[in-house]
Protein backbone atom coordinates (compact mmCIF):
# COMPACT_ATOMS: atom_id res chain seq x y z
CA UNK A 1 0.00 0.00 0.00
CA UNK A 2 1.46 3.39 -0.92
CA UNK A 3 1.50 6.06 1.76
CA UNK A 4 -1.12 8.09 -0.10
CA UNK A 5 -3.43 5.12 -0.13
CA UNK A 6 -2.82 4.55 3.53
CA UNK A 7 -3.64 8.18 4.26
CA UNK A 8 -6.81 7.90 2.24
CA UNK A 9 -7.76 4.76 4.11
CA UNK A 10 -7.19 6.43 7.48
CA UNK A 11 -9.18 9.43 6.38
CA UNK A 12 -12.04 7.22 5.28
CA UNK A 13 -11.97 5.44 8.63
CA UNK A 14 -11.99 8.78 10.40
CA UNK A 15 -14.90 10.03 8.33
CA UNK A 16 -16.86 6.90 9.11
CA UNK A 17 -16.14 7.35 12.82
CA UNK A 18 -17.28 10.98 12.72
CA UNK A 19 -20.41 10.02 10.86
CA UNK A 20 -21.33 7.33 13.37
CA UNK A 21 -20.89 9.71 16.31
CA UNK A 22 -21.88 12.91 14.56
CA UNK A 23 -24.34 14.04 17.19
CA UNK A 24 -21.77 13.81 20.00
CA UNK A 25 -18.92 15.27 17.98
CA UNK A 26 -20.95 18.25 16.81
CA UNK A 27 -22.42 19.08 20.20
CA UNK A 28 -19.73 18.03 22.66
CA UNK A 29 -17.23 20.90 22.21
CA UNK A 30 -19.90 23.53 22.78
CA UNK A 31 -21.31 21.64 25.74
CA UNK A 32 -17.84 21.28 27.27
CA UNK A 33 -17.28 24.99 26.88
CA UNK A 34 -20.60 25.72 28.56
CA UNK A 35 -19.79 23.29 31.38
CA UNK A 36 -16.33 24.70 32.03
CA UNK A 37 -17.17 28.37 31.61
CA UNK A 38 -20.73 28.51 32.99
CA UNK A 39 -21.80 25.50 35.04
CA UNK A 40 -18.55 25.13 36.91
CA UNK A 41 -18.28 28.85 37.82
CA UNK A 42 -21.86 28.87 39.07
CA UNK A 43 -21.14 25.80 41.19
CA UNK A 44 -17.95 27.39 42.49
CA UNK A 45 -19.80 30.60 43.33
CA UNK A 46 -22.38 28.55 45.22
CA UNK A 47 -19.58 26.80 47.13
CA UNK A 48 -17.80 30.07 47.93
CA UNK A 49 -21.03 31.61 49.19
CA UNK A 50 -20.69 29.48 52.37
CA UNK A 51 -17.24 30.87 53.17
CA UNK A 52 -15.73 34.07 54.37
CA UNK A 53 -12.75 34.97 52.20
CA UNK A 54 -11.05 38.11 50.93
CA UNK A 55 -8.84 36.40 48.35
CA UNK A 56 -5.74 36.73 50.48
CA UNK A 57 -3.08 34.05 50.16
CA UNK A 58 -2.47 34.06 53.91
CA UNK A 59 -5.95 33.67 55.36
CA UNK A 60 -7.71 30.54 54.13
CA UNK A 61 -11.43 30.66 53.29
CA UNK A 62 -13.42 30.23 56.50
CA UNK A 63 -16.55 28.06 56.52
CA UNK A 64 -19.46 30.17 57.79
CA UNK A 65 -22.42 28.19 56.44
CA UNK A 66 -25.45 30.45 55.82
CA UNK A 67 -23.89 33.46 57.53
CA UNK A 68 -23.39 35.38 54.25
CA UNK A 69 -26.99 34.87 53.21
CA UNK A 70 -28.20 35.81 56.69
CA UNK A 71 -26.17 39.01 56.66
CA UNK A 72 -27.45 40.02 53.24
CA UNK A 73 -31.10 39.17 53.84
CA UNK A 74 -31.52 40.38 57.41
CA UNK A 75 -28.77 42.84 58.28
CA UNK A 76 -27.71 44.54 55.07
CA UNK A 77 -29.90 47.53 54.27
CA UNK A 78 -27.74 48.28 51.24
CA UNK A 79 -28.71 44.92 49.74
CA UNK A 80 -32.44 45.52 50.01
CA UNK A 81 -32.15 49.05 48.62
CA UNK A 82 -30.24 47.58 45.69
CA UNK A 83 -32.99 45.02 45.11
CA UNK A 84 -35.62 47.73 45.18
CA UNK A 85 -33.63 49.97 42.84
CA UNK A 86 -33.10 47.12 40.40
CA UNK A 87 -36.87 46.68 40.13
CA UNK A 88 -37.53 50.42 40.07
CA UNK A 89 -35.09 50.86 37.19
CA UNK A 90 -36.32 47.82 35.27
CA UNK A 91 -40.05 48.43 35.55
CA UNK A 92 -39.78 52.16 34.89
CA UNK A 93 -37.65 51.56 31.79
CA UNK A 94 -39.70 48.61 30.57
CA UNK A 95 -43.05 50.41 30.73
CA UNK A 96 -41.73 53.43 28.84
CA UNK A 97 -39.94 51.28 26.27
CA UNK A 98 -42.95 49.09 25.54
CA UNK A 99 -45.42 51.97 25.24
CA UNK A 100 -43.06 54.09 23.12
CA UNK A 101 -41.83 51.09 21.15
CA UNK A 102 -45.32 50.00 20.11
CA UNK A 103 -46.33 53.58 19.28
CA UNK A 104 -43.22 54.12 17.17
CA UNK A 105 -43.60 50.76 15.41
CA UNK A 106 -47.15 51.59 14.39
CA UNK A 107 -46.08 55.05 13.30
CA UNK A 108 -43.17 53.79 11.18
CA UNK A 109 -45.18 50.92 9.76
CA UNK A 110 -47.50 53.37 8.01
CA UNK A 111 -44.69 55.27 6.45
CA UNK A 112 -43.92 52.93 3.59
CA UNK A 113 -41.58 55.01 1.48
CA UNK A 114 -38.81 55.60 3.93
CA UNK A 115 -39.35 52.50 6.05
CA UNK A 116 -36.03 50.79 5.41
CA UNK A 117 -33.93 53.89 5.82
CA UNK A 118 -35.79 54.78 8.97
CA UNK A 119 -35.33 51.27 10.38
CA UNK A 120 -31.60 51.43 9.68
CA UNK A 121 -31.10 54.77 11.41
CA UNK A 122 -33.33 53.72 14.24
CA UNK A 123 -31.23 50.66 15.04
CA UNK A 124 -28.05 52.63 15.73
CA UNK A 125 -28.61 53.37 19.46
CA UNK A 126 -28.77 49.70 20.36
CA UNK A 127 -25.57 48.67 18.61
CA UNK A 128 -23.52 51.63 19.82
CA UNK A 129 -21.02 50.94 22.60
CA UNK A 130 -22.76 51.54 25.96
CA UNK A 131 -19.67 53.09 27.56
CA UNK A 132 -19.50 55.71 24.80
CA UNK A 133 -23.25 56.30 25.08
CA UNK A 134 -22.89 56.78 28.83
CA UNK A 135 -20.19 59.40 28.30
CA UNK A 136 -22.24 61.35 25.76
CA UNK A 137 -25.20 61.45 28.14
CA UNK A 138 -22.85 62.48 30.94
CA UNK A 139 -22.03 65.56 28.88
CA UNK A 140 -25.70 66.16 28.09
CA UNK A 141 -26.64 65.91 31.79
CA UNK A 142 -23.70 68.03 33.02
CA UNK A 143 -25.43 70.70 35.19
CA UNK A 144 -23.53 73.81 34.07
CA UNK A 145 -22.59 73.12 30.46
CA UNK A 146 -24.95 70.30 29.51
CA UNK A 147 -27.63 70.50 26.90
CA UNK A 148 -30.37 69.11 29.16
CA UNK A 149 -30.34 72.16 31.42
CA UNK A 150 -29.89 74.48 28.45
CA UNK A 151 -33.12 73.12 27.00
CA UNK A 152 -34.89 73.54 30.35
CA UNK A 153 -33.65 77.15 30.40
CA UNK A 154 -34.99 77.84 26.89
CA UNK A 155 -38.38 76.48 27.92
CA UNK A 156 -38.23 78.57 31.10
CA UNK A 157 -37.80 75.77 33.64
CA UNK A 158 -35.42 75.48 36.57
CA UNK A 159 -32.11 73.69 35.85
CA UNK A 160 -31.83 70.24 37.43
CA UNK A 161 -28.99 68.13 38.82
CA UNK A 162 -29.95 65.03 36.80
CA UNK A 163 -27.62 62.15 37.71
CA UNK A 164 -26.05 64.35 40.38
CA UNK A 165 -29.22 64.26 42.45
CA UNK A 166 -30.26 61.31 44.59
CA UNK A 167 -33.90 61.39 43.53
CA UNK A 168 -33.25 62.03 39.82
CA UNK A 169 -30.36 59.63 39.31
CA UNK A 170 -32.44 56.56 38.44
CA UNK A 171 -35.00 58.39 36.26
CA UNK A 172 -32.09 60.02 34.38
CA UNK A 173 -30.49 56.62 33.81
CA UNK A 174 -33.87 55.22 32.75
CA UNK A 175 -34.05 57.92 30.08
CA UNK A 176 -30.72 56.73 28.65
CA UNK A 177 -31.92 53.13 28.71
CA UNK A 178 -35.15 54.15 26.98
CA UNK A 179 -33.15 55.98 24.34
CA UNK A 180 -30.99 52.96 23.74
CA UNK A 181 -33.53 50.12 23.87
CA UNK A 182 -36.89 51.46 22.66
CA UNK A 183 -35.66 50.79 19.10
CA UNK A 184 -35.35 47.09 19.90
CA UNK A 185 -38.97 46.83 21.04
CA UNK A 186 -40.07 48.89 18.04
CA UNK A 187 -38.15 46.71 15.56
CA UNK A 188 -39.53 43.48 17.03
CA UNK A 189 -43.07 44.87 16.96
CA UNK A 190 -42.57 46.06 13.38
CA UNK A 191 -41.48 42.57 12.39
CA UNK A 192 -44.59 41.26 14.16
CA UNK A 193 -46.81 43.73 12.29
CA UNK A 194 -45.78 42.29 8.93
CA UNK A 195 -46.99 38.84 9.96
CA UNK A 196 -50.54 39.94 10.88
CA UNK A 197 -53.33 38.52 8.67
CA UNK A 198 -54.77 41.20 6.38
CA UNK A 199 -58.37 39.86 6.27
CA UNK A 200 -59.24 41.33 9.66
CA UNK A 201 -58.25 44.78 8.49
CA UNK A 202 -60.30 44.52 5.32
CA UNK A 203 -63.32 43.46 7.37
CA UNK A 204 -62.78 46.36 9.76
CA UNK A 205 -62.55 48.80 6.89
CA UNK A 206 -65.82 47.52 5.42
CA UNK A 207 -67.44 47.95 8.83
CA UNK A 208 -66.18 51.54 8.86
CA UNK A 209 -64.00 51.24 11.95
CA UNK A 210 -61.80 54.24 12.77
CA UNK A 211 -58.03 53.74 12.78
CA UNK A 212 -58.00 54.05 16.55
CA UNK A 213 -60.66 51.33 16.88
CA UNK A 214 -58.76 49.11 14.45
CA UNK A 215 -55.55 49.56 16.41
CA UNK A 216 -57.19 48.95 19.76
CA UNK A 217 -59.36 45.94 18.89
CA UNK A 218 -57.43 44.23 16.09
CA UNK A 219 -53.75 45.18 15.98
CA UNK A 220 -53.05 45.21 19.70
CA UNK A 221 -54.63 41.83 20.58
CA UNK A 222 -52.92 40.17 17.60
CA UNK A 223 -49.60 41.70 18.56
CA UNK A 224 -49.83 40.63 22.18
CA UNK A 225 -47.54 37.57 21.93
CA UNK A 226 -44.91 39.59 20.07
CA UNK A 227 -45.02 42.45 22.56
CA UNK A 228 -44.78 39.95 25.36
CA UNK A 229 -41.73 38.27 23.85
CA UNK A 230 -40.03 41.62 23.31
CA UNK A 231 -40.79 42.68 26.88
CA UNK A 232 -39.43 39.39 28.21
CA UNK A 233 -36.13 39.78 26.37
CA UNK A 234 -35.86 43.38 27.41
CA UNK A 235 -36.73 42.89 31.08
CA UNK A 236 -34.07 40.20 31.51
CA UNK A 237 -31.44 42.51 30.05
CA UNK A 238 -32.69 45.55 31.95
CA UNK A 239 -32.37 43.71 35.28
CA UNK A 240 -28.69 43.17 34.45
CA UNK A 241 -27.91 46.71 33.28
CA UNK A 242 -24.32 47.46 34.21
CA UNK A 243 -22.36 49.45 31.62
CA UNK A 244 -24.48 52.58 31.51
CA UNK A 245 -24.90 52.83 35.27
CA UNK A 246 -21.27 52.09 36.02
CA UNK A 247 -19.89 54.61 33.51
CA UNK A 248 -22.31 57.36 34.44
CA UNK A 249 -22.71 57.18 38.21
CA UNK A 250 -20.81 54.13 39.57
CA UNK A 251 -23.91 53.65 41.69
CA UNK A 252 -23.87 57.17 43.11
CA UNK A 253 -24.50 59.79 44.28
CA UNK A 254 -24.12 57.97 47.59
CA UNK A 255 -25.79 54.68 46.77
CA UNK A 256 -28.69 56.33 44.92
CA UNK A 257 -28.31 54.33 41.71
CA UNK A 258 -26.68 51.20 43.08
CA UNK A 259 -28.52 48.22 41.58
CA UNK A 260 -27.76 44.58 42.44
CA UNK A 261 -25.27 44.26 39.61
CA UNK A 262 -23.35 47.35 40.73
CA UNK A 263 -23.47 46.38 44.41
CA UNK A 264 -22.14 42.93 43.50
CA UNK A 265 -19.28 44.48 41.57
CA UNK A 266 -18.37 46.85 44.42
CA UNK A 267 -18.57 44.11 47.03
CA UNK A 268 -16.47 41.72 44.97
CA UNK A 269 -13.89 43.82 43.20
CA UNK A 270 -13.49 46.81 45.51
CA UNK A 271 -14.03 45.33 48.97
CA UNK A 272 -12.95 41.80 47.94
CA UNK A 273 -15.55 40.18 50.21
CA UNK A 274 -15.74 37.19 47.95
CA UNK A 275 -17.95 35.00 50.14
CA UNK A 276 -20.60 37.65 50.65
CA UNK A 277 -20.45 38.63 46.98
CA UNK A 278 -20.94 35.00 45.97
CA UNK A 279 -24.02 34.80 48.17
CA UNK A 280 -25.34 37.99 46.57
CA UNK A 281 -24.66 36.66 43.08
CA UNK A 282 -26.48 33.41 43.87
CA UNK A 283 -29.51 35.38 45.06
CA UNK A 284 -29.35 37.61 41.96
CA UNK A 285 -29.05 34.55 39.72
CA UNK A 286 -32.02 32.91 41.44
CA UNK A 287 -34.07 36.09 41.15
CA UNK A 288 -33.49 36.31 37.41
CA UNK A 289 -34.32 32.62 36.91
CA UNK A 290 -37.53 32.94 38.91
CA UNK A 291 -38.61 36.07 37.04
CA UNK A 292 -37.89 34.52 33.63
CA UNK A 293 -39.77 31.39 34.65
CA UNK A 294 -42.79 33.37 35.88
CA UNK A 295 -42.91 35.47 32.71
CA UNK A 296 -42.67 32.38 30.49
CA UNK A 297 -45.49 30.70 32.46
CA UNK A 298 -47.72 33.78 32.18
CA UNK A 299 -47.06 33.80 28.46
CA UNK A 300 -48.05 30.17 28.09
CA UNK A 301 -51.21 30.83 30.11
CA UNK A 302 -52.06 33.72 27.80
CA UNK A 303 -51.53 31.60 24.73
CA UNK A 304 -53.85 28.89 26.03
CA UNK A 305 -56.40 31.57 26.88
CA UNK A 306 -56.19 32.92 23.34
Amino acid sequence: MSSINRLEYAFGKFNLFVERHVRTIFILPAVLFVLVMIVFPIGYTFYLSFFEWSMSGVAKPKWVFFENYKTLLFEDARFWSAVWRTFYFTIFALVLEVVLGVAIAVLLDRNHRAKNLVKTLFMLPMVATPVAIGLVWLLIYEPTIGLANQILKWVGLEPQLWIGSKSQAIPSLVLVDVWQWTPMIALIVMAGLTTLPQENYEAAEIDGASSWQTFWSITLPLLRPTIFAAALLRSIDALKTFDIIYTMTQGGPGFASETLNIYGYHLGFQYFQLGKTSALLMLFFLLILVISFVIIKIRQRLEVYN
Partner: protein
Amino acid sequence: MKAKKLWFGRLNLFLVIVVIAAFLFPFFWMILASFKTQAQIMSNEHFLFFKPTLKNFYSVFEEHNFLRYIWNSFVVAFFSTLFGLILGLPAAYAIAKFKQHGLGLIILIARIIPGISFMIPWFIIFSNLGLINTYTALILSHMLVGLPFIIWVMISFYETLPMELEEAARVDGCTIQGAFVRIMMPLSTPGIITASILSFIFSWNNFMFSLVLAGDRTKTLPIAVFNFMSYSEINWGGLMAAAVVITLPILIISLALQKYIISGMTVGAVKG
Protein backbone atom coordinates in the same frame (compact mmCIF):
# COMPACT_ATOMS: atom_id res chain seq x y z
CA MET B 1 -61.65 63.11 2.57
CA LYS B 2 -58.62 63.48 0.35
CA ALA B 3 -57.51 66.65 2.10
CA LYS B 4 -57.81 64.92 5.43
CA LYS B 5 -55.66 62.07 4.21
CA LEU B 6 -52.99 64.44 2.92
CA TRP B 7 -52.94 66.29 6.21
CA PHE B 8 -52.68 63.01 8.06
CA GLY B 9 -49.77 61.94 5.88
CA ARG B 10 -47.92 65.15 6.63
CA LEU B 11 -48.48 64.79 10.34
CA ASN B 12 -47.17 61.25 10.11
CA LEU B 13 -44.04 62.34 8.25
CA PHE B 14 -43.47 65.10 10.78
CA LEU B 15 -43.71 62.63 13.68
CA VAL B 16 -41.32 60.20 11.97
CA ILE B 17 -38.78 62.98 11.53
CA VAL B 18 -39.13 64.02 15.18
CA VAL B 19 -38.61 60.43 16.36
CA ILE B 20 -35.56 59.88 14.18
CA ALA B 21 -34.06 63.21 15.21
CA ALA B 22 -34.53 62.39 18.89
CA PHE B 23 -32.84 59.02 18.53
CA LEU B 24 -29.94 60.27 16.41
CA PHE B 25 -29.33 63.45 18.33
CA PRO B 26 -26.84 62.10 20.91
CA PHE B 27 -24.61 60.80 18.08
CA PHE B 28 -24.72 64.19 16.43
CA TRP B 29 -23.88 65.85 19.73
CA MET B 30 -21.01 63.46 20.36
CA ILE B 31 -19.45 64.10 16.95
CA LEU B 32 -19.92 67.86 17.30
CA ALA B 33 -18.29 67.97 20.74
CA SER B 34 -15.35 65.87 19.54
CA PHE B 35 -14.35 68.79 17.29
CA LYS B 36 -14.68 71.46 20.00
CA THR B 37 -12.01 72.81 22.31
CA GLN B 38 -12.56 72.58 26.05
CA ALA B 39 -13.31 76.33 26.15
CA GLN B 40 -15.94 76.01 23.44
CA ILE B 41 -17.64 73.16 25.30
CA MET B 42 -17.56 75.10 28.56
CA SER B 43 -19.22 78.20 27.12
CA ASN B 44 -22.85 78.19 26.15
CA GLU B 45 -22.38 80.32 23.04
CA HIS B 46 -20.84 77.70 20.76
CA PHE B 47 -23.60 75.13 20.56
CA LEU B 48 -23.73 74.70 16.81
CA PHE B 49 -21.30 77.18 15.30
CA PHE B 50 -17.64 77.05 16.21
CA LYS B 51 -14.20 76.70 14.69
CA PRO B 52 -13.52 72.93 14.60
CA THR B 53 -10.28 71.49 15.92
CA LEU B 54 -8.61 68.12 15.40
CA LYS B 55 -6.66 68.42 18.63
CA ASN B 56 -8.90 65.98 20.49
CA PHE B 57 -8.33 63.19 17.99
CA TYR B 58 -4.63 63.96 17.98
CA SER B 59 -4.51 63.57 21.76
CA VAL B 60 -6.54 60.35 21.68
CA PHE B 61 -4.16 58.68 19.25
CA GLU B 62 -0.84 60.30 20.12
CA GLU B 63 -0.98 60.82 23.88
CA HIS B 64 -3.33 58.01 24.82
CA ASN B 65 -2.16 55.39 22.39
CA PHE B 66 -5.62 54.38 21.16
CA LEU B 67 -4.30 52.43 18.19
CA ARG B 68 -3.12 49.80 20.65
CA TYR B 69 -6.59 49.56 22.26
CA ILE B 70 -8.31 49.40 18.88
CA TRP B 71 -6.02 46.50 18.03
CA ASN B 72 -6.77 44.78 21.38
CA SER B 73 -10.50 45.16 20.87
CA PHE B 74 -10.24 43.88 17.33
CA VAL B 75 -8.18 40.80 18.27
CA VAL B 76 -10.52 39.84 21.12
CA ALA B 77 -13.70 40.43 19.09
CA PHE B 78 -12.34 38.62 16.04
CA PHE B 79 -11.11 35.50 17.81
CA SER B 80 -14.04 35.21 20.22
CA THR B 81 -16.35 35.30 17.20
CA LEU B 82 -14.23 32.85 15.19
CA PHE B 83 -14.04 30.30 18.01
CA GLY B 84 -17.71 30.91 18.76
CA LEU B 85 -18.53 29.95 15.18
CA ILE B 86 -16.28 26.89 15.22
CA LEU B 87 -17.97 25.55 18.35
CA GLY B 88 -21.41 27.01 17.71
CA LEU B 89 -22.26 26.12 14.11
CA PRO B 90 -22.00 22.31 14.38
CA ALA B 91 -23.71 22.41 17.78
CA ALA B 92 -26.60 24.51 16.47
CA TYR B 93 -26.93 22.22 13.47
CA ALA B 94 -27.02 19.06 15.57
CA ILE B 95 -29.49 20.61 18.03
CA ALA B 96 -31.80 21.59 15.16
CA LYS B 97 -31.37 18.30 13.26
CA PHE B 98 -31.76 15.92 16.20
CA LYS B 99 -34.27 18.17 18.00
CA GLN B 100 -32.20 18.42 21.18
CA HIS B 101 -34.45 21.02 22.75
CA GLY B 102 -33.09 20.38 26.23
CA LEU B 103 -29.66 21.56 25.09
CA GLY B 104 -31.27 24.53 23.40
CA LEU B 105 -32.79 25.44 26.75
CA ILE B 106 -29.37 25.31 28.45
CA ILE B 107 -28.06 27.71 25.84
CA LEU B 108 -31.00 30.01 26.53
CA ILE B 109 -30.20 29.93 30.25
CA ALA B 110 -26.62 30.89 29.41
CA ARG B 111 -28.06 34.01 27.81
CA ILE B 112 -30.20 34.79 30.85
CA ILE B 113 -27.62 34.46 33.64
CA PRO B 114 -26.08 37.79 34.68
CA GLY B 115 -22.47 37.88 33.47
CA ILE B 116 -21.29 39.08 36.85
CA SER B 117 -22.20 35.68 38.34
CA PHE B 118 -19.13 34.14 36.71
CA MET B 119 -16.72 36.93 37.47
CA ILE B 120 -15.47 35.74 40.84
CA PRO B 121 -14.59 32.15 39.87
CA TRP B 122 -13.08 33.35 36.62
CA PHE B 123 -11.06 35.97 38.37
CA ILE B 124 -9.73 33.39 40.86
CA ILE B 125 -9.04 30.74 38.23
CA PHE B 126 -7.49 33.08 35.69
CA SER B 127 -5.32 34.62 38.44
CA ASN B 128 -4.09 31.19 39.49
CA LEU B 129 -3.31 30.27 35.89
CA GLY B 130 -1.55 33.61 35.38
CA LEU B 131 -4.01 34.50 32.64
CA ILE B 132 -5.17 37.89 33.94
CA ASN B 133 -4.18 40.55 31.42
CA THR B 134 -3.92 38.07 28.53
CA TYR B 135 -5.89 37.77 25.31
CA THR B 136 -6.74 34.17 26.24
CA ALA B 137 -8.81 35.17 29.27
CA LEU B 138 -10.54 37.95 27.36
CA ILE B 139 -11.34 35.80 24.33
CA LEU B 140 -12.70 32.97 26.51
CA SER B 141 -14.89 35.34 28.50
CA HIS B 142 -16.17 37.18 25.43
CA MET B 143 -17.03 33.85 23.83
CA LEU B 144 -19.50 33.39 26.63
CA VAL B 145 -21.59 36.19 25.16
CA GLY B 146 -20.94 35.27 21.55
CA LEU B 147 -21.32 31.48 21.60
CA PRO B 148 -24.85 31.22 23.09
CA PHE B 149 -25.97 33.99 20.76
CA ILE B 150 -24.50 32.26 17.70
CA ILE B 151 -26.15 28.96 18.67
CA TRP B 152 -29.45 30.73 19.37
CA VAL B 153 -29.51 32.47 15.99
CA MET B 154 -28.33 29.43 14.06
CA ILE B 155 -30.78 26.93 15.60
CA SER B 156 -33.71 28.99 14.37
CA PHE B 157 -31.96 29.42 11.03
CA TYR B 158 -31.25 25.71 10.51
CA GLU B 159 -34.82 24.86 11.49
CA THR B 160 -36.02 26.77 8.42
CA LEU B 161 -33.70 24.91 6.04
CA PRO B 162 -35.17 21.83 4.33
CA MET B 163 -33.49 18.74 5.74
CA GLU B 164 -34.28 16.84 2.52
CA LEU B 165 -31.30 18.58 0.94
CA GLU B 166 -29.00 16.86 3.35
CA GLU B 167 -30.72 13.53 2.77
CA ALA B 168 -30.33 13.93 -0.99
CA ALA B 169 -26.60 14.53 -0.55
CA ARG B 170 -26.32 11.44 1.62
CA VAL B 171 -28.05 9.29 -0.98
CA ASP B 172 -25.28 10.44 -3.32
CA GLY B 173 -22.73 9.06 -0.89
CA CYS B 174 -21.91 12.13 1.17
CA THR B 175 -21.31 11.78 4.91
CA ILE B 176 -23.37 13.87 7.38
CA GLN B 177 -20.39 16.09 8.14
CA GLY B 178 -19.64 16.37 4.41
CA ALA B 179 -23.22 17.45 3.74
CA PHE B 180 -22.96 19.93 6.59
CA VAL B 181 -19.79 21.54 5.24
CA ARG B 182 -20.65 21.42 1.52
CA ILE B 183 -24.39 22.05 1.56
CA MET B 184 -25.81 23.34 4.81
CA MET B 185 -23.02 25.81 5.60
CA PRO B 186 -23.17 27.62 2.24
CA LEU B 187 -26.97 27.72 2.48
CA SER B 188 -26.79 29.26 5.92
CA THR B 189 -24.43 32.09 4.96
CA PRO B 190 -26.96 34.84 5.76
CA GLY B 191 -27.48 33.36 9.23
CA ILE B 192 -23.74 33.05 9.76
CA ILE B 193 -23.22 36.68 8.73
CA THR B 194 -25.91 37.84 11.16
CA ALA B 195 -24.51 35.77 14.01
CA SER B 196 -20.90 36.83 13.36
CA ILE B 197 -21.54 40.56 13.08
CA LEU B 198 -23.56 40.65 16.26
CA SER B 199 -21.14 38.44 18.16
CA PHE B 200 -18.35 40.79 17.02
CA ILE B 201 -20.31 43.87 18.09
CA PHE B 202 -21.19 42.38 21.50
CA SER B 203 -17.53 41.65 22.12
CA TRP B 204 -16.41 45.07 20.87
CA ASN B 205 -18.93 46.73 23.22
CA ASN B 206 -18.30 44.48 26.21
CA PHE B 207 -17.29 46.39 29.31
CA MET B 208 -17.70 44.26 32.44
CA PHE B 209 -15.58 41.23 31.51
CA SER B 210 -12.71 43.38 30.29
CA LEU B 211 -12.98 45.63 33.34
CA VAL B 212 -12.13 42.68 35.57
CA LEU B 213 -9.90 40.55 33.34
CA ALA B 214 -7.90 43.04 31.24
CA GLY B 215 -4.77 44.81 32.38
CA ASP B 216 -2.66 47.63 30.98
CA ARG B 217 -1.36 45.58 28.08
CA THR B 218 -4.63 44.03 26.88
CA LYS B 219 -7.03 46.85 27.77
CA THR B 220 -9.87 46.98 25.24
CA LEU B 221 -11.43 50.20 23.95
CA PRO B 222 -14.35 50.51 26.42
CA ILE B 223 -11.92 50.29 29.35
CA ALA B 224 -9.53 52.76 27.74
CA VAL B 225 -12.37 55.21 27.20
CA PHE B 226 -13.61 54.70 30.74
CA ASN B 227 -10.12 55.31 32.21
CA PHE B 228 -9.88 58.44 30.12
CA MET B 229 -12.72 59.80 32.24
CA SER B 230 -11.19 59.09 35.63
CA TYR B 231 -8.50 61.76 35.28
CA SER B 232 -9.00 64.61 37.72
CA GLU B 233 -10.47 67.18 35.37
CA ILE B 234 -12.74 65.89 32.64
CA ASN B 235 -11.39 66.69 29.19
CA TRP B 236 -14.75 66.65 27.42
CA GLY B 237 -13.45 67.10 23.89
CA GLY B 238 -10.98 64.25 24.26
CA LEU B 239 -13.63 62.08 25.85
CA MET B 240 -16.04 62.67 22.99
CA ALA B 241 -13.30 62.02 20.43
CA ALA B 242 -12.61 58.72 22.19
CA ALA B 243 -16.34 57.94 22.13
CA VAL B 244 -16.41 58.65 18.38
CA VAL B 245 -13.39 56.39 17.80
CA ILE B 246 -15.08 53.49 19.59
CA THR B 247 -18.59 53.87 18.14
CA LEU B 248 -17.85 54.90 14.56
CA PRO B 249 -16.65 51.49 13.31
CA ILE B 250 -19.77 49.86 14.80
CA LEU B 251 -22.09 52.46 13.27
CA ILE B 252 -20.49 52.03 9.85
CA ILE B 253 -20.68 48.22 9.98
CA SER B 254 -24.30 48.47 11.09
CA LEU B 255 -25.28 50.86 8.33
CA ALA B 256 -23.61 48.69 5.72
CA LEU B 257 -25.09 45.42 6.93
CA GLN B 258 -28.33 46.67 8.49
CA LYS B 259 -30.49 43.88 7.08
CA TYR B 260 -28.52 41.22 8.94
CA ILE B 261 -28.41 43.16 12.18
CA ILE B 262 -32.14 43.78 12.32
CA SER B 263 -32.89 40.12 11.68
CA GLY B 264 -30.42 39.10 14.40
CA MET B 265 -31.78 41.52 16.96
CA THR B 266 -35.35 40.38 16.46
CA VAL B 267 -34.73 36.64 16.08
CA GLY B 268 -36.80 34.31 18.20
CA ALA B 269 -39.13 37.02 19.39
CA VAL B 270 -41.57 37.13 16.50
CA LYS B 271 -41.87 33.43 15.96
CA GLY B 272 -43.28 33.23 19.48
